Each structure stands twice: as structure tokens, then as C-alpha cells.
């Protein structure tokens, strides 16, 4: 950025950015207490970031171990019970401790108030409480491992096995219940913040699209999570008192458990994917140097996805024994989700058209996202259609599809967003060449790992088995090697980012030429985000040089 001529106000910002901003300890507390007792949304975001990535690394290690088991058939590394525990832990940790809190709790916490020009979220102390609940839930889940053996039910805790198994499901389920509480508080906090704390002039349709995505996500968190809470409580009640609500011998219905579980857990998929979609809109607009195409449609499509997504849970249960009518209706509704999703993708592409594209690392992550998410989406159609679903359900095909959506879609954008916002959060820039190389390695490793799974599933390899028939050996081995490549890429990426945080060169307030409010404040932002509360008088992605060249001339 040094060779670009600076405008006077940028010089001023640059001087301020030499300071540590919110990273400097101002209060009377010192050391770690200044972090874990802070109600500053930025510090809480970082607390979440550190906790989430710690669990992410644990989840990755468990995943790699599961793959390692598949190097040869016969279960040479782990026996069946140990493998059951592995996929349960991998699922519970990755879903409930990483992707569901995911972007909202980390980057959402950090950037939502800044993007709407506020000094903090609506309830800062509640925000800190939600982090403590997250940590408590995580500890309770970890404690469950040491009581009566590792939980072995899979992350879905399906009845009747979750009631019968001797492992400590009660504790694990209670941990997830606490995590749900944390998620609800974050959702409430964000909704109130967006309704009440926008800067002067920031009308609903001047909000950045990341904020819109967080808004839709927060509604899902608030509306869906209580249903999970009661479902989990019912498991505990069943285990402690054998009430019989899901027990057929007492008139109960195990399928009803699946309904209740997916009434939450399908919308939860949109908790995982809507925030990344919002970030994609941000990154594409910034690096195309154009305003987003069809802003209102993109904003509304988030709400539409949240709404329709609430009504499609049955597509997880096509083989569970629902009526044909229910199967048909859920399949149809599932296809409807493609409409708002398609609106987003077409508008993103239209934004790039005739844009002045600058292929920096965050933008390349978005490109990887579009490729992987398309594969995930298309395989989703196979699973959403009744006839084909019967063939591939409960096989590796589902595992492959799920990882293409959640990892290739959601988590890739989480990484991309870190590359986008890290210079803002810490004021320093990572090595961009290494970032690109890391992305390349991750992309290759990812496809080597998960594409063979789609093929394996199509050929009939069931999921959750600790061994396999000899005919699957080649594809299984490619997939195992893929997991090593992927881990190497992840290690390179994380090291590069960490090195950037501590040793990178100064990034300046606006390294990418972004137009949303976070780029108008120093990097890292001061404790109260802005020197004075900004007044918003234009759209979030207003690029005067791209839209009206003559007006810009006049301004000079």
C-alpha cells in the first residue's frame, strides 16, 4: 500500500493505526483477565476464534484418524467400537463446537457492530455469558468422554440406540443443550443489535449483506434451537426415567424423535451456510470494485432461504418410513430452496461481470467456494430426489455431499473471510503468496479426500463402517492420501495466518479498497470502533470510480 498516494484523511487514519487499538489493555485488568472478562465484542470474537479453532484442530485430527483406519480393510488400527466413538466425536465437535457457532460467534461478533456503525452489540455482558456457556458446554461434552466410555451414537443421537447405549450420552447431550443456550443468546443479541443500534442513516437496505445474512441466521438460531433443546431434554428424560415417549413398547414413536431432531438440525445447516454466503457477497463486491448486482434480491434471498429451510427437514427421513405424501412434499420444498440459492449465485456472477477484478487470496477462496459448493449443491439434488435418494442414502455419497457443502462451502469461506478481515482485526498482513499456495494445496487435498467418497457411495459403500470390502480399496486409499494433503494445506494456511498476525507488515486501514464501514476505521479498530459514530449516506458497496467517472472527476 506504500506506493499508493494517500489522501489526507487516510494519512490521519494511518497514524492512528500505528497504535494497538482494541488490542491494547486499557482497563485495570491485566493479562488473560483483560480478555476473558472483557465485554468488548471484538475481544469476545477473538475468544471465540481461539476456542473454535482449537476444537477445529481436534476435529481434524479425529477425522484424519478415521481416514487412516481406511488405509486397508479389516480394522487394523481401531475396532468397531472405537471407530463408532471416533465418528461421533468428530461429528459432535465439528458440528456443535465449530461450524454452528462458526462465523456468527467469531467474525459476526467482531464485525456486525462495526459494519452497522455501532460501538458494541446490544447486550455486551450477555455476549460474554454466551462465550462462557460455550466453554461450559464444551467442557461437559469432554467430561462425558471419561465417565462410561466414549459416546457412540453419531452426532444425531438417534433414538432408540441413544437411550439404550451404556456410554455417557446423558452428559454429552446435556453439553449440547448448554451450547444451544449459547447459540440462542448470540442470536437474540444480534437481532436486537441490528434492530436498535444501526448508525444514523443506515436504513435496512443500506446494511452490508453480511449483516443481512447474520440477521437471517439469528432468526433461525432463535426459532430453531429451542426445538433442539427440548428434543435433547427428552433424550435425557428417557434415559433417566424411561417415560416411553419414543419407545414403541409403550406406544411411543422413534420416528417422532427424528422429526423433532431435524426440525432443528436442518435449519442448522442454514445457520452454517448463510453467514458464509453473506461474506461471499462482501468479498465479491470488494474485489470486483463494483456494487453488488441485485442488492435487494441478495438480501431477501437470505430471508427466503431461512424461511423455506425451516420447512424441509423431512428430506433427512425419506427412508425412515414417512407417508408417500410427506416424502413428496418434503422433496418438492427441498427443490424450492434452490431458487433463492440460485438468485445469489447469479447475482454474484453478474457482479463480477465487467468488474475490475483483483484476484487477492480472499477472492480466490470465493472462487474455490463456488466450484465446491456447486458440486455440493448438485449432489444435493441427487439426495433430494426420492428415487435416487433410496440408492445412495446412508452411504459415503451423503458424507461426500455433506462435506462439499459444509466444508467446501461454509468452512472455505470461513478461511477466506479470515484472509479478508485478518488485516483489519490485527492490523497486519499475512504473506499473500503463501496464502495462495496454501489454498491450492487445500483445494487439491479436499477434492482428493471427498470426491472419491461420492464415487464410493454411488458404488454402495455404507457410511459409519470401520472396515470395507476389497473392491473399494483403491478409492479409499486415494481418499486417505487426500486427507494428508488437506492437512498439510491447512497447516500451511494456519501458520501463515498466525505469522501474519504477529510478524506481518502493517496492513493500513483499507488494504483491499473495501467500502463498508469497517474499512473507514483504523486497523486494528479502537476500543469503541469509531472515533465518532459515522453517518451513512450511500449504499454499502458504493464505488464512485466504477459507477460515475465524471462525478469523481468533479470531486477532485
Amino acid at each position, binding site marked *: 500500500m506504500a506506493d499508493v498516494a494517500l489522501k489526507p484523511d487516510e494519512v490521519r487514519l494511518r497514524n492512528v493505526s500505528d497504535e494497538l487499538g482494541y488490542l491494547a489493555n486499557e482497563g485495570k485488568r491485566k493479562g488473560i483477565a483483560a480478555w476473558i472478562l*472483557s*465485554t*468488548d*465484542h471484538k475481544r469476545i470474537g477473538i475468544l471465540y476464534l481461539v476456542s473454535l479453532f482449537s476444537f477445529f484442530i481436534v476435529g481434524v485430527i479425529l477425522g484424519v484418524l478415521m481416514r487412516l483406519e481406511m488405509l486397508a480393510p479389516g480394522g487394523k488400527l481401531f475396532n468397531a467400537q472405537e471407530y463408532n466413538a471416533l465418528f461421533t466425536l468428530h461429528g459432535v465437535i465439528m458440528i456443535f463446537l465449530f461450524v454452528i457457532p462458526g462465523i456468527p460467534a467469531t467474525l459476526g461478533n467482531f464485525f456486525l457492530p462495526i459494519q452497522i456503525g455501532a*460501538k*458494541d*452489540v*446490544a*447486550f*455486551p*455482558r*450477555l455476549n460474554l455469558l454466551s462465550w462462557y456457556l460455550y466453554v461450559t458446554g464444551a467442557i461437559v461434552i469432554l467430561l462425558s468422554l471419561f465417565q462410561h466410555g466414549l459416546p457412540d451414537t453419531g452426532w444425531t443421537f438417534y433414538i432408540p440406540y441413544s437411550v439404550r447405549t451404556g456410554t455417557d450420552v446423558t452428559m454429552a447431550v446435556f453439553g449440547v443443550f448448554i451450547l444451544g443456550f449459547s447459540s*440462542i443468546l448470540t*442470536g*437474540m*443479541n444480534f*437481532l*436486537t443489535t441490528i*434492530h*436498535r*443500534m*444501526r*448508525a*444514523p*442513516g*443506515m*436504513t*435496512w437496505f443500506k446494511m452490508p449483506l453480511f449483516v443481512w445474512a447474520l440477521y437471517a441466521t439469528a432468526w433461525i438460531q*432463535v*426459532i430453531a*434451537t*429451542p*426445538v433442539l*433443546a*427440548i*428434543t435433547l*431434554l*427428552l433424550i435425557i*428424560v428417557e434415559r433417566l*426415567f*424411561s*417415560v*416411553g*415417549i419414543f419407545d414403541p413398547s*409403550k*406406544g*411411543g*414413536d422413534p420416528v*417422532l424423535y427424528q422429526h*423433532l431432531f431435524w*426440525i432443528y438440525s436442518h435449519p442448522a445447516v442454514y445457520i452454517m451456510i448463510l453467514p458464509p454466503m453473506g461474506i461471499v457477497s462482501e468479498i465479491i463486491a470488494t474485489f470486483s470494485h463494483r456494487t453488488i448486482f441485485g442488492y435487494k434480491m441478495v438480501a431477501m434471498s437470505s430471508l427466503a432461504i431461512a424461511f423455506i429451510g425451516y420447512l424441509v427437514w423431512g428430506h433427512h427421513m425419506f427412508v425412515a418410513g414417512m407417508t408417500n405424501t410427506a416424502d413428496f412434499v418434503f422433496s418438492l420444498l427441498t427443490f424450492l430452496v434452490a431458487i433463492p440459492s440460485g438468485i445469489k449465485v447469479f447475482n454474484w456472477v453478474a457482479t463480477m461481470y465487467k468488474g475490475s477484478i483483483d484476484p487477492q487470496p480472499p477472492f480466490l477462496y470465493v472462487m474455490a467456494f463456488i466450484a465446491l459448493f456447486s458440486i455440493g449443491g448438485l449432489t444435493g439434488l441427487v439426495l433430494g430426489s426420492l428415487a435416487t435418494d433410496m440408492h445412495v442414502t446412508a452411504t459415503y455419497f451423503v458424507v461426500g455431499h455433506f462435506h462439499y457443502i459444509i466444508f467446501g462451502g461454509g468452512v472455505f469461506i470461513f478461511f477466506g473471510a479470515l484472509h479478508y478481515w485478518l488485516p483489519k482485526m490485527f492490523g497486519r498482513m499475512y504473506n499473500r503468496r503463501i496464502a495462495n499456495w496454501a489454498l491450492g494445496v487445500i483445494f487439491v487435498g479436499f477434492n482428493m479426500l471427498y470426491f472419491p467418497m461420492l464415487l464410493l457411495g454411488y458404488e454402495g459403500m455404507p457410511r459409519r463402517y470401520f472396515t470395507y470390502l476389497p473392491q473399494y480399496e483403491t478409492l479409499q486409499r486415494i481418499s486417505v492420501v487426500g486427507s494428508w494433503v488437506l492437512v498439510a494445506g491447512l497447516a500451511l494456511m494456519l501458520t501463515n495466518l498466525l505469522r501474519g498476525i504477529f510478524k506481518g507488515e502493517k496492513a493500513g486501514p483499507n488494504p483491499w479498497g473495501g467500502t463498508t464501514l469497517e474499512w473507514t476505521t483504523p486497523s486494528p479498530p479502537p*476500543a*469503541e470502533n469509531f472515533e465518532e*459514530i459515522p*453517518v*451513512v*449516506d450511500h449504499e454499502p458497496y458504493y464505488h464512485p470510480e466504477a459507477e460515475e467517472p465524471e462525478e469523481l472527476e468533479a470531486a477532485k
Partner: protein
Amino acid sequence: MSELIQAGSVSGKISSPEGSRSGDHGIRKDAERAKIGMWLFLMTELLLFAGLFLVYSVYRYLHNVDFHRAGLETHTLLGTLNTMVLLTSSLTMALSIAALRTGKKRLSVSFLASTILLGFVFLVVKYFEWSSEILGGIYPGSPVLLNRSNGEILFFGLYYTMTGLHGLHVIAGLAVLCFMLVLILRDKITMDDYVKLENAGLYWHLVDIVWIFLFPLFYLIN
């Protein structure tokens, strides 16, 4: 400039006091904000119970006659008494807020104390009700109950689960109300700043409303 603030719709009203924020990071008095948060929280509570109401309606549809038969055995009299107790406690709760709003602190405290008292009465009645049923051999997994039809097993399973969860909410509500009582006595809640008491009241009304739905489903079904 002023038009811009107006254009900010809801935010227009809120953004004016931004400058007058205290040094304490981000904690600023905004009663409206606290209420929005509370209503969202109440919604999550309703949805928590909604899951159980869903289960109830499915099984009642499947075991209509059994539910009717089992419903004859619940103590309608005690249920009615508890309904009256809880409704009265909602009234005293509302009166407590109204009294505080007009600056009558002592009146407010006594209304709040009677709310808490009525809450305890509810729990005591509930205790005797459950005791008599458990002594009669009807509790989850009991030999008496397991000899009954499936529908009756489910009815009593749901009865204990739903009234039990409601009971936990009454206990939580009482804890909150006791806390509010202390805050009023210490002048932390005053006639100028009573949103905490209002929110506690909203929570108490929620507990009441959930009971209003539980009452007919378990006591008046016969």
C-alpha cells in the same frame, strides 16, 4: 442530517443518545432494547414448550380414547386451584409494576412479595398432587402404569414431563422475582428505571400462560 436520522427508521430514535454513553463499555440504558431482547427470549421459551405440545398432539391423535380415560384420573380440583393461584399471582405481578411506576415503592414490594408467596403456594399444591399420584403407583416406569394401555402410559409420561418442565420454570421465575425484590429494596429498580421488573413480569406471565394451556390438556380433557 436530521432527515438522515429519520431515514434510519428505528435506528433514528436510538442513535441520538450515542454520544452520551458512559465509560462502561457498551452498557447503556435503553429500555426498548431490553424489551426486544426479552420478547425474543420469551419466544424461545414458547418454542421449547411447543416441541412438547407437538408431541402431545401427535399422541393424543393416535391414542384419543386412552388419553380421555387417563385424564379422568388427574386431580381436577387441585389443578383448578393452582390455575387460580397462578392467575392471581399474575395480577399481583402486574399491580407491583403499576405501583412502582407511580412511585409507590412499599406497595410495589408487598405486591411482589405476594406474587412470590403465590408462586410457592403453587409449588406446594403441585407437591401434594404429585405425591398422591406417585403414592397411588402412577409414575414413569411403575408396575401399575406399565399394566395400563400405551396411551395411558404416554399420557402420564407427558403429564410428568410437561408439568415438571413447567415447575422448573416456576422455580426459575421465583428466583428471578426474589432477585427483583432485593433490587427494589436497594433502589436499583426505581420508578424511572423499571425495565428489569417489567421483564421479570413478562417472564412470570409466560409461566402463567404455559400453565393456562397445560391445564385443559391434562385436567379438563375428560
